């Protein structure tokens, strides 16, 4: 996550006062976060776009009720995630996260041989596929933590749960992911993944 520029509170305050240009700056700053969070919750990118846009519009109208000085991100995520959930509830259900693994990304450490790179890509695909076999809530909590890198408060906002329950939800979801991986067999075992501790 990027450090928060100092003027976020000022922007929020100006937007609260009715300054649509200040709000546009805020939207630009958080549109990636909002859209990706909506992707994770709604499943499909069309629904996510719709949800994120609607969320930003609703947030504008709700700004008068925003408590000055409180963090903006969780507040925004609550509204966007709620829109995304409504679309998932009523619309076509998509059971993947609409995400894909990039082909050619090096894993980070030493430059891998082409064979190792291909293997790493395949293993990432297997891990993503294993996540796809989890229930909706498990998938979402893992994605919020690892793919969106949300804080606990932000995860609670996105998932619509109490902050105190985030940790245990994540831990249960990881247990189930581990079980799915074990079922998939040794080829997908996390110890063989790049960077795995030996």
């Amino acid at each position, binding site marked *: 996550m990027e450090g928060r520029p100092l003027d976020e509170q000022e922007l929020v305050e100006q937007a*609260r*006062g*009715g*300054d*649509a240009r200040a*709000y*546009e700056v805020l*939207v*630009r700053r958080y*549109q*990636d976060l909002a*859209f*990706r969070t909506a*992707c994770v919750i709604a499943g499909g*990118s069309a629904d*996510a*776009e719709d949800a*994120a*846009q609607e969320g*930003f*519009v*609703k947030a*504008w*109208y*709700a700004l*008068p*009720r925003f408590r000055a000085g409180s963090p903006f991100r969780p507040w925004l995520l*609550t*509204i966007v*995630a709620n829109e995304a959930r*409504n*679309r998932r*509830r*009523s619309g076509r259900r998509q059971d993947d996260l*609409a*995400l*894909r*693994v*990039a082909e050619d*990304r090096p894993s*980070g450490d030493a430059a891998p041989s082409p064979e190792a790179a291909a293997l790493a*890509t395949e*293993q*990432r695909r297997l*891990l*993503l596929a294993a996540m796809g076999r989890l229930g909706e809530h498990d998938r979402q909590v*893992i994605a919020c933590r*690892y*793919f969106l890198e949300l804080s606990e408060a932000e995860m609670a906002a996105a998932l*619509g749960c109490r902050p105190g329950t985030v940790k245990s939800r994540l831990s249960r979801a*990881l247990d189930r*992911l*581990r079980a799915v*991986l074990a079922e998939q067999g040794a080829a997908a075992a*996390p*110890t063989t*993944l*790049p960077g*795995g*501790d030996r």
Partner: protein
Amino acid sequence: MSRRELDLDRALADLAASLEFPPTPDLAAAVTARLDQDPVAARPARGRRWLGGLSGWRRLAVAGLAVALLAVAVLAASPGTREAVARRLGLRGIGVELGGPPPSTATTTSGGRLDLGLGERVTLEEARRRVSFPVLVPHTGGLERPDAVFVSEVVPPGGRVDLVWRARPGLPASGFTDAGLLITEFRGQTTPEFIKKVAVAGQVEFLEVDGEPAYWFSGEPHFFTYRDSAGTFREEQTRLAGNTLIWQRGELTLRLEGELSKEEALRIAESMR
């Protein structure tokens, strides 16, 4: 075990680094364009000048008043509107007026005593077939099956469903009928609008249901206006003359009426799915 935990943690972080989300659309432009189209939202410069001394909240309230007065003019034929405007807040989809006597047509009881003049009586399944939105029901307190269901397909566009529960322990009868709880669902405006609320101060509270705005009206009977999915301003009165909770769920507008406490109403509202 702890090594495996670490490994999965690393593997997920590694996956995250090579994951591709769909490209983010230009939401800032889209959102700004939508706000620009809304005459009430696009008022910052003027709002500054003549409302500069007020907080954002009050500024919105006062800015909305002009629109409120217009709405009242439209509704001037109704007896309840005359003294109704005390304040107005910009919120999505609903206009509400409190105060003044309820219109004389309130609580018509033409048929059975659960018939509140609500349209055609059907089964829940039938109602679900006939409207264009998913009909939600409470999942608490044995309220999963309404005692009566009414559907109206004509007004507003997209249809409207009224769910009625007979009075029972925990659901006191309203003063007029045997009904203890009425929930109405219809599609509100699909593009967000500055939704209008006109209320006499002191009888309305602003709440949230699932993170979306909600309004709690207590005390005397009221009627309200809303914008339907075609953008038409419509007028409605409450039926049970009890307390009322109105909230949004996505594009749905929901209204819950009964002699319930705020906490009971919120519990029911939050259980709707």
